[in-house]
């Protein structure tokens, strides 16, 4: 992230604390949080503390270089170390990464270009099925060819981008004349069409294996593992198991893709293309009158957004080892949309924060809450409240099992977030730019 994306590091900040001190605080924060996450591998707070340190880093007024270095250390070194002590955290981090990329992709379509897309998960499915079919025994069933070798994984990373991009254009072409809610319903339909196709294309020719799904989906080759294990053997240590290595491989792959996605989003957003998208969002009629080719730009938005989902779909399929249409329902599209809007539409940190929050909330915080309450209930904890008196949680009716109501709590959180922060948590800001070397032109009277 280059200039302007964060308010930090500018001389305009009049903070009482000098930048050097901030750097120290950030460093200390990162160190303590990482240490506590490793030492307390089951502590949710320690892990959240660590994740939050990334956002602290982003906001701390320290030099950009330091921020990038510390961020890289946290993501590339500390996170895997924490993941080694608790695989669940690595899984959460990987899924956060996947949803960050999805949210960034949808953010381009909805947040930047203002095109409400309710079927975004379709592109995720396109990428997932592309590799799942070609990189598994399903290739033989569908096309009568041998499954692709594992090294094909890497060319397919590119291919899935292209395929999803093409799907984006194919969806975009017929629907470009539609506006607002008409577009929304058509994209919703498209999403359903893709899912139903995936669910039904097991006949007349079996492409997708229908609801039974495809398994095992091919995984990337581990070029280094043999050499590494030989070296370990030479040192007299136990070799690493493939199944133990893969979570880390996928984590790094996801991080790499997310980095590329962020870079692409940032560059496109900060260019004539991004400006054209925003102009279309602000006022379509005025934009076209200013010479912006609507069709081209909208297609470009659809294709760019879709391509992120495509590549992540492929990683997802490979990571999951198994896919079937249940991963690509309308609710999934809605979930990603909620991330984008919750985080703050039209800006990169917003989408990242939204995706992280929703994913962590769903996978971790709400689960922890219900497990905790369930623990209290099974232990027969007695709650004493003033006025109401004491109540033994064990006598709570079975219908009120906390694990059943995670989604209800999530719903309430969505409502409250929107009421108290309608612009999203990190609302979009316009980038300020310096105007250099402008030829002195005569000023027009400014009495207006």
């Amino acid at each position, binding site marked *: 992230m280059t200039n302007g994306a964060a308010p930090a590091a500018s001389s305009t900040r009049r903070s009482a604390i000098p930048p050097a001190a901030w750097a120290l605080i950030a460093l200390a924060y990162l160190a303590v949080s990482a240490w506590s996450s490793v030492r307390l591998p089951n502590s949710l707070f320690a892990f959240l503390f660590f994740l939050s340190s990334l956002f602290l880093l982003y906001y701390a007024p320290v030099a950009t270089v330091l921020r990038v270095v510390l961020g890289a250390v946290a993501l590339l070194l500390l996170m895997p170390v924490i993941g080694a002590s608790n695989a669940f955290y690595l899984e959460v981090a990987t899924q956060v990464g996947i949803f960050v990329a999805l949210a960034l992709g949808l953010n381009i379509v909805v947040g930047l270009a203002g095109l409400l897309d309710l079927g975004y998960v379709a592109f995720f499915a396109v990428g997932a099925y592309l590799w799942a079919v070609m990189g598994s025994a399903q290739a033989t069933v569908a096309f009568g060819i041998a499954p692709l070798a594992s090294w094909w994984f890497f060319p397919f990373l590119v291919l899935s981008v292209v395929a999803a991009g093409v799907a984006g254009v194919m969806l975009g072409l017929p629907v470009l004349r539609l506006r607002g809610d008409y577009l929304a319903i058509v994209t919703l*339909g498209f999403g359903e069409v893709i899912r139903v196709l995936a669910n039904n294309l097991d006949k007349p020719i079996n492409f997708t294996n229908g609801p039974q799904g495809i398994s095992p989906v091919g995984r990337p080759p581990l070029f280094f593992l043999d050499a590494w294990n030989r070296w370990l053997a030479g040192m007299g240590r136990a070799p690493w198991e493939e199944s133990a290595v893969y979570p880390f491989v996928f984590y790094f792959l996801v991080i790499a893709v997310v980095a590329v996605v962020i870079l692409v989003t940032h560059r496109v957003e900060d260019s004539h293309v991004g400006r054209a998208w925003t102009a279309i969002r602000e006022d379509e009629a005025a934009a076209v009158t200013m010479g912006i080719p609507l069709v081209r730009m909208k297609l470009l938005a659809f294709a760019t957004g879709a391509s992120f989902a495509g590549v992540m779909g492929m990683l997802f399929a490979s990571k999951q080892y198994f896919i079937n249409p249940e991963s690509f329902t309308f609710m999934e599209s809605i979930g990603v949309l909620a991330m984008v809007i919750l985080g703050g539409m039209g800006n990169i940190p917003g989408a990242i924060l939204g995706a992280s929050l929703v994913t962590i909330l769903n996978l971790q915080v709400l689960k922890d809450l219900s497990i905790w309450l369930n623990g209290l209930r099974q232990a027969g904890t007695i709650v004493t409240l003033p006025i109401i008196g004491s109540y033994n949680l064990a006598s709570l009716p079975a219908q009120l099992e906390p694990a059943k109501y995670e989604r209800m709590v999530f719903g309430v959180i969505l409502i409250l977030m*929107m009421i108290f922060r309608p612009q999203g948590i990190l609302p979009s800001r316009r980038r300020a730019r310096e105007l250099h070397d402008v030829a002195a032109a005569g000023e027009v009277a400014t009495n207006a």
Partner: protein
Amino acid sequence: MTTAVAAIDFELLGRIFPRVLVDGILLGFVYSLIALGYTMVYGVLEFINFAHSEIFMVGAFIGAEVLLILQAARVLAASPPLLSLLASVLAAGVIAGLLAVTIERVAYRPLRGAPRLVPLISAIGVSFFLQDLVRMIWALHRNAFYLTYPPIEVFNQRFPAGAYALWGGAAAVAIAAIGWLMRRAGRGVARARFESLSMLPKYTSIALGIVSVGLLILDPNRVLTVPVKSLVVIGASLLVLSVLVYVVNQTKLGMAIRAVAEDQATASLMGVNVNQIISVTFLIGGLMGGIAGALFGLQFGTVNPYSGFIPGLKAFTAAVLGGIGNIPGAMLGGLVLGVLEALAGSYLSLISGGAFGAEYKDIFAFSVLILILIFRPRGLLGEVVREKL
């Protein structure tokens, strides 16, 4: 995976056609009824009330609950079926309406003026909340996940529509005549009002006429039957549609609603209490959602906390298809969608020799939707809103 490619049995296709068409129309009326609620709220606020499917679902639960209470009190079997139905439908409508107003007050009103998509997310939140709240309430109350409508025998009987096609045609003519008389009856200022009142006979006679003529042509053996409960749904849809058109076009309240829909700021300058009108709009929308829910339950027999979702989605599609914000459009969109689904569901498998089946009916419906919107981007009856430059 051997699919024997059999020759298409055209005789069979033709034989079931009237049945398919009638099925489609019956289903279409259910969609229409739900779509009216979407369209009503959208017309005023330009906002997709995502929680409408849950309001609808709550209506279905209340409807069932009333009937179950009546059954437990042993009055269900004794009282006239239409009366029980009325009690159930009205209770469902009123409670769903109040719920809709509450939702608007709590979750949407604070967001007025925020970017357009923000209320959509809070609506999704409301949706999640209501689904599990209903599940919780009825889990505690009846320990049930599904509520099953107690059978009311009369409604489950089948009406020999084919045999009565001629009578239906005669009735259509008679009702049309009544409508014509009503239109003529009013004079001066009252004229428009009478014209509006004649909506019910007008729509009824059109619907009845089309169906009767269709039956006469398509069902020469006079064997087609229709469940009585479907007739109740159709009647209720027509009634609700007519009342709605009347209220919106001919009453002071309707005028205020239209004013708010047109321009909230101006309406409030003209002395319209915008908040109140929006509440009323939600009340009406919720009322219709609840009525639709109870009738849906009656039609299909069972309801669970998540069963609002799919019909809601379909109804929303129907509303867009007809031209969202347009009241007769919602009705038309529902019918078109219903017929499309029935055609696809019954015919795809027969025509393709099993290669493609009923599971593609939603794809088929959505494809047609996309086609229609490409050629009529504002829906079937939606007005083309030309932007002012």
